[in-house]
């Protein structure tokens, strides 16, 4: 597979690289904690893991500014953190507590936080792409100079609503960046059963817009192509499709042990672990040291433990409020 990168025209400082690493590591540690809680029976619903997707989630969102709109999917927890979401709020969401952003009405990353311009997905895959178009349209109408970034999996990219949204976005030149997270499997269905094109970014040809494929395990490469796409959107040049090729290292959700994934395939991708890969690179470049890595790890652990403690001490919503909020005032 040929991977195209951005033009490497964006110079990231050591500080930026530190941040990228921090968010990727945070995503990994947070999700590992969620999976542990799930197996302890403490998560009321499902638990999804974005293990293998850290570079994609973090690298893409890192290309956004504060005023940009983020429409993340269920394997993009890192993108929420990049956009400014707190670890505490994410735990509260997963634990369905009264003081979560959805007041216990929904779980996982299914929430919105307009103060951070994060608009959570719904479970019907593909449905949020037209909605992200709507935000991009509003941005264009109000001359906000903001882009909308959204995501879809290889599986969800088959959904008709995605096609309709891309038709609209391309013809209206909307500032939309669609990242197709090609992580080899839609639940248990391998990509061979889903499409016969070589690259999902080739779909862009049909819309007359740029389409790029990037190594989704390389955070700098992801950041680069996303930064370019965001700039294109800002300049009024319309939408971009970015296919980020990666691997879903865990099952579809915590209940699924992914027995259908060939061992060898899993092993091959394991060597390309996005977090480990980036860590090695930073050590080699002397951006970090073993000591500073340890410090980051300690900081993350502390943040997770503190937030989890607070989240677990929070109560569930009272049953009386079940009917509240069906309609806005």
């Amino acid at each position, binding site marked *: 597979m040929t991977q195209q990168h951005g033009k490497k025209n964006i110079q990231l400082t050591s500080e930026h690289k530190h941040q990228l690493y921090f968010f990727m590591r945070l995503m990994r540690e947070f999700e590992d904690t969620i999976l542990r809680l799930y197996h302890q029976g403490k998560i009321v619903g499902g638990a999804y893991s974005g293990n293998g997707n850290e570079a994609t989630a973090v690298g893409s969102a890192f290309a956004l500014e504060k005023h940009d*709109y983020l429409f993340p999917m269920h394997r993009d927890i890192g993108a929420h953190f990049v956009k400014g979401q707190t670890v505490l709020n994410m735990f509260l969401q997963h634990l369905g507590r009264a003081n979560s*952003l*959805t*007041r216990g*009405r*929904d779980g996982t990353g*299914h*929430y*919105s936080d*307009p103060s951070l*311009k994060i*608009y*959570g997905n*719904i479970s*019907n895959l593909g*449905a*949020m*792409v*037209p*909605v*992200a*178009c*709507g*935000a*991009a*349209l*509003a*941005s264009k*109408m*109000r001359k906000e100079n903001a882009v*909308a970034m959204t995501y879809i999996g290889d599986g969800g990219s088959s959904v*008709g*609503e995605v096609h*309709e*949204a891309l*038709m*609209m976005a391309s*013809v*209206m030149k909307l500032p939309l960046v669609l990242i197709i997270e090609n992580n080899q499997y839609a639940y248990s269905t391998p990509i061979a059963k889903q499409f016969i094109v070589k690259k999902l970014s080739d779909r862009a040809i049909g819309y007359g817009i740029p389409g790029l494929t990037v190594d989704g395990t390389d955070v700098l490469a992801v950041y680069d192509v996303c930064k370019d796409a965001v700039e294109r959107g800002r300049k009024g040049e319309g939408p971009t499709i970015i296919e980020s090729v990666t691997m879903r290292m865990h099952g579809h959700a915590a209940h699924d042990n992914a027995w259908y994934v060939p061992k060898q395939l899993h092993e091959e991708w394991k060597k390309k672990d996005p977090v480990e890969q980036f860590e090695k690179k930073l050590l080699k470049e002397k951006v970090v040291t073993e000591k500073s890595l340890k410090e980051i790890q300690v900081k993350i652990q502390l943040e997770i433990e503190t937030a989890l403690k607070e989240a677990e001490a929070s109560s569930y919503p009272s049953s009386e409020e079940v009917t509240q*909020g*069906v*309609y*806005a*005032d």
Partner: protein
Amino acid sequence: MNKTLTYIEAISEGLREEMRRDNSVFLLGEDIGAYGGAFKVTKGFVEEFGEERVLDTVLGEAAILGAASGAALVGMRPVAEMQFSDFVSNGFNQLVNISAKYHYRNFTPIPMVVRLPSGGGIHGGPFHSINPEAWFFHVPGLKLVAPSTPYDAKGLLKAAIRDNNPVLYFEHKYLYRHIKGEVPDDDYIVPIGKADIKREGADITVITYHNGVHWSLSAAETMAKEGIEVEVVDLRSLMPLDKEAILRSVKKTGKVLIVHEDTLTGGIGGEISAMITEHAFEFLDAPIRRVASLDTPVPYAPTLEEAFLPSAKKVVVELQKLAAY
């Protein structure tokens, strides 16, 4: 000052006034721009508001409805047009899973309006004639309105645009140019969730909306000649349903006929009937009866469509049964 407008003119005028009043209101839909819409509701709008506020979209109902939801989420007030209400099924997912649920799960409002040209009697056949309100009546989080007069059409549309929820606005195609009425020059709204007594009477209550109001009023005239006074309750809003107005009238007359153009089985008449028996059973002097379209797709040939649809005559037949009970 009042003026006389057709039902369709009232809709256009309501849209225009709200667009002038509030810059965040914009329109999107198929062929609504330069062409002015399939029914000409938005004729001349591009000239006044420009292409950036009257958006001709690609042919894709999910794209239209999704974009409306997304723009509303971030503070705009979109009015999306479905060219025919039948086509809303292509964007069903957007409405029932995003527009309807977003506020409950998130407390983030989605102030949007979907205009749905509905109804038969125009020889549109199976795909240009349906009344899809029952599909959405069952979805918490959506509001549904269905005006029967120019006054209500304009007032409900203005209220829908100002409402902070997704409102489905069912406009009846047969009424577009068949119905004229008085509309004030002044700014006014018709509150969502409030029924209107279109005719007072002490003997039988008819609960209806949309085109049903006109069949029922005509039937009430016929019954009056027989000495039976029929009260016609025009729901105007289907969700929220004005239960108080319904029950007040039922308790007054003790006899109930529900009339709607949507097909009988699973139409909203069933829910209204259940609600009445739960809350006013002891006031009833007769079984609740219903007049609705037959349980078939909407047929094309005039003879078939006439057999399919309710009519003033069919309403009279049921009213006579109730009067004799």
